[in-house]
């Protein structure tokens, strides 16, 4: 399968005339691990949001197997791990209902991520950012998943938890032939986990 960004442009409706993202193209294939690094404010997150169908582009297309991503109904095969986990969970629901809101989650995933049963009875305000993020990862790893977009997905984790999360995700990606787009400011990290690392200049060239 391929996930494709074709000449994506995005601007906020009342944000003046300057586009946040201007003419970005990218192709990601199943089983590929692509890293992306760029200075803050260039539009990395906006690109991820468009690729995951969270926003619609002003022009250009985000296509999964030739079909616009925003047209998928139900569990979207392209999932975005949000860089601020506290914004990705409902503050008024326990983590148990958040974890299972997109369908059943494989027991191996829960164990592999080190999610403890005691967390699931709590509300988001009672867990740390790193704990919330691991619940978000488990929720995103549904059986229909094909592409995972990781936007600074481990920036809130301590180094040891970060290593464990990536070892787990890489094993999952290999086993299930997932395509990974990894956005991070940590070049050393990208070099450890990605087969190919792009800079923003290469992407917009």
């Amino acid at each position, binding site marked *: 399968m391929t996930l494709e960004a074709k000449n994506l442009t995005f601007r*906020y409706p009342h*944000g003046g005339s300057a586009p946040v993202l201007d003419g970005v193209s990218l192709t990601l294939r199943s089983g590929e691990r692509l890293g992306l*690094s*760029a*200075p*803050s*404010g*260039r*539009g*990395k*997150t*906006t690109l991820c949001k468009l690729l995951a169908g969270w926003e619609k582009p002003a022009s250009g297309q985000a296509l999964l197997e030739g079909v616009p991503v925003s047209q998928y109904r139900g569990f979207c095969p392209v999932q975005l791990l949000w*860089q*601020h986990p*506290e*914004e990705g969970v409902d503050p008024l629901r326990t983590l148990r209902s958040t974890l299972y809101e997109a369908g059943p989650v494989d027991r191996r995933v829960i164990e592999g991520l080190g999610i403890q049963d005691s967390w699931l009875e709590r509300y988001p*305000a*009672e*867990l*740390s*950012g*790193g*704990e919330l993020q691991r619940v978000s990862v488990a929720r995103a790893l549904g059986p229909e998943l094909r592409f995972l977009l990781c936007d*600074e997905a481990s*920036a*809130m*984790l*301590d*180094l*040891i*938890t*970060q*290593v*464990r999360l*990536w*070892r787990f995700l890489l094993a999952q990606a290999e086993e299930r032939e997932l395509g990974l787009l990894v956005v991070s*400011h*940590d*070049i*050393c*990290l990208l*070099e*450890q986990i990605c087969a190919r690392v792009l800079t923003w200049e290469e992407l917009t060239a």
Partner: protein
Amino acid sequence: MEPILNVAHLSVTFSRYGRGFSRTKLSAIEDLSLTVDPGQVAAVVGSSGSGKSLLAHAIFHILPPNSRVEGTLLYDGAPLTAHRAAEPRGRELVLIPQGVTYLDPMMKVGPQVCRGRRDPAVRARCREVLKRYGLGPDVEDLYPFQLSGGMARRVLIACAVMERPRLIVADEPTPGLDARTAQRVVGHFRELADRGAGVLLITHDLPLALSVADKIVVMHAGQTVDEISADQLQSGYGPSHPYTRALWRAMPQNGFAPPSGDLEEWLT
């Protein structure tokens, strides 16, 4: 020299209601002690969920109402009670919160950093502070949702350093920032410390912490397990505690290795 902040035997517990009227206690921090001297940058690193943010919130007395704090918190040698914290909080005593959700979503950046004050001196200061972190005057006119993650972080930091703080508690100030900007931010903390302020830098980024901090406090499961000077950690004396060693080896530039078997047991 009297430390600016002295935390001794701090513990934080949460009480939660179960079914009916039953209540359960959840211990988040147990017996934590650390000090921050004037002119010092103290970095706190440790596992996620080890209570680093709670420590910050305890200092500012902004923990949720179902929490209970025990132990001693001294600011300039006198107890930092909720009553005493209210006055300097936000001016002498500033917190850079971890979540970008701490920005008011309905308020543009400019007024937010100026806290609604409109006199020209304050606005000029706001512009200067934003510029320092590489944000132009056009950013003042944006709402938080129009900011990128890294820009929102820098706005939070700008809010904190608008006044002349004596104690800065920065809770994960750098995720989402590129290496240069992150270095600029912590470099500014160093500068504030060199002018006599105390900085408590809570972070996961050990290499970044090492580049500015005088000492590194390592936390795990609500306790301090190690306290080591930055020089000591870098100069081959080696981290003393096995957990600190494991953190060191887990750095992407130091091997990206998961903890070895015996430590694995200790961690759980």
